[in-house]
């Protein structure tokens, strides 16, 4: 039994499939990164997993439980953090957590203990009595993580958890995610920031136009592109407009021209610019993804 299993998940809005037959699974204690540009269907996929919207087709199983048949049991097993978390602004952080804790059927001493633990964990203990309306977005995101962890869920769904917060806030939230990763939670994180995902994910899925175009560990994805995508650095201190061969992408960085091509062009480049100025390197994950997005 896998903590997260998704099969042919489909959601159609106005006749257009925003999530189209998406299938993936996440093993226990894994961090799965769902990547994709804006509008790729990441949030819709996470919302369907959280039971916030209903799919037109497909099945979702969390800890072996079908979301359609046991929605409340599934919801009790997941924690959900989303971009720009919102709370009741007129209530304090402490009161908000207590309210949401009760929704998860936590009560009495356990609720008080968990609320205190979580407020300390997200470093909001000193601000616990302050009205949430006066919190910064970063503080709200941290409170959101506290709310998502209050009932000790085994599966965490994080949808752009660092969206809309400043650099300091991003670092704090990232630290919290690293910490959660070490706590044996199964995490599904959606983001359009590859750097953020690459650092913490065991495997990655790339969504484009609602379709999952690739799934795998970052290294596997990079290796799968060997012989398909080629990257060269041409050490010429002027931007080159014409390489004499067909390239997928070119850009000028510092004193070098970086070229991506879908066929090996090292010999053509060496002939034109000199062999000592041309260097073949592995494409980065970001370049691989951008190439994939362009090619699908």
């Amino acid at each position, binding site marked *: 039994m896998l903590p997260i299993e998704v099969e042919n998940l489909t959601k159609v809005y106005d006749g257009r499939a925003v999530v189209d037959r998406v299938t993936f699974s996440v093993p226990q204690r894994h961090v799965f990164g769902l990547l994709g540009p804006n509008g790729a269907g990441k949030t819709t996929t996470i919302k369907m997993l*959280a039971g916030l919207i209903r799919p037109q087709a497909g099945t979702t199983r969390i800890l072996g439980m079908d979301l359609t048949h046991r929605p*409340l049991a599934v*919801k009790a097993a997941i924690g*959900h953090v989303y971009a720009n*978390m*919102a709370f009741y602004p007129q209530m304090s952080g402490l009161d908000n957590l207590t309210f949401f804790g*009760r929704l998860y*059927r936590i009560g009495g001493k356990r609720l008080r203990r968990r609320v205190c633990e979580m407020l300390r964990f997200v470093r909001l203990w000193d601000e616990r009595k302050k009205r949430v309306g006066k919190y910064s977005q970063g503080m709200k995101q941290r409170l959101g993580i506290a*709310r998502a962890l209050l009932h000790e869920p085994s599966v965490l769904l994080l949808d752009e958890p660092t969206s809309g917060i400043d650099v300091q806030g991003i670092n704090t939230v990232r630290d919290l995610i690293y910490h959660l990763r070490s706590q044996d939670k199964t995490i599904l994180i959606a983001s359009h920031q590859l750097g953020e995902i690459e650092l913490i994910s065991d495997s990655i899925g790339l969504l484009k136009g609602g379709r999952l175009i690739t799934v795998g560990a970052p290294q596997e994805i990079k290796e799968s592109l060997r012989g398909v995508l080629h990257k060269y650095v041409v050490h010429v201190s002027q931007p080159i407009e014409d390489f004499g061969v067909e390239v997928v992408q070119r850009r000028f960085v510092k004193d070098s021209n970086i070229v991506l091509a879908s066929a090996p062009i090292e010999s053509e480049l060496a002939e034109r610019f000199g062999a000592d100025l041309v260097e073949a390197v592995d494409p980065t994950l970001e370049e691989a993804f951008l190439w994939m997005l362009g090619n699908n």
Partner: protein
Amino acid sequence: MTRFIRLVGFFAKKQLSGGTALLFVALIVLLVLVGMLTGARMLKDISRGLVQDLGTPAPSGPVVSVDVGSVHRQVWDATNATYWGTYPVGILAALRLTSRWLFIVLPFVGLLLASRGISQELESGLAQSLYVSPVRPSTLGMARMLGDSLSTSLLIGVGLAVALASGGWLVRLSVTTEQLVRSVGFIAILGVYTSVFILIGNLLSATLRSSVRSIWACVAVGLLVFAGHLIGENAFIATHPSYPTVPFPPREVNEFLYVHDMWSTGVVPTVEELTADATPVVYRYLLELEAHAQTVFDMVEADYWRERWYGFASPVHAIWEIAGQLLQDRHVDATEIFAPIPPLDPPPSIGTSLRRVWPELLGMFVVWLALFGLNVRVLSRMEA
């Protein structure tokens, strides 16, 4: 169950703690106070008018009394005061006279209080936190609707209590235990009435998913209710039948009544009560008078039921009818105006008053239930 009750309490508290709540109470107090002062003045004028017209002693305080007169006198009264049917005193008079404006204002208040609830949660993202929790969306929705309705009823109660206490002190209103019970009962019905509009507001908020659109839609519904009421009332008045006038008694009849000392009481005897010395002219006139009374009675009764049915089309009118029955001390509806009513006839019991308006109460309850069910259905299918 405990969790549901807690949720209801939470939503009620949330509604009460908002700034809108205070504004709401202030509005009610202001409206009722203005109404009470105007009403007190109006009743004083009516009392003065009664003294001039009838020569009866001025009724004390804001009281209009019913004269027990002859059949034709009562028919005449009926033509003028068919729908003035009930005569409340003290605190009930204040409530009845001032609540007419509340009937129009409360739909707006209910609609606007609920208009932003769900849509704002959807817009802010709070809905995601709520609906991702292991609570059925319908349970959350029901708790919200009950919480909002309870808190609004409480606000109406507090507003009216403050207004009645202060206004009552200003115009020196009397209050008895029964009047207080009737007032509380009526305020509770006002709460249900307002919650009908809260449910409509909730429905619009959940369906439109945008605070701005929802507020405009609620204002439109409120205006529609108001316009419907105005148009309905005017149409009703325009189609009001004109009653035939009382046949003028011939000289011989007047002489007969004078001889038999019947002018002082104003009560015309029935044909069976006539003494042996009555002439055929007197007999004929009395028969004509009874036929006339029957005609007017039928017309009044038909008109009365027409008005009752109209209450189903206009919720404002329905609550006005309920107020008319519940906020009374003596005398009942128009059809009974022909029955001899002793001057100190005790008021109908609260149960009787409620029974008289069962169609309106049932109608309101059915509408409330239907809207509640529709809300639950929409909310349980809502996507956050």
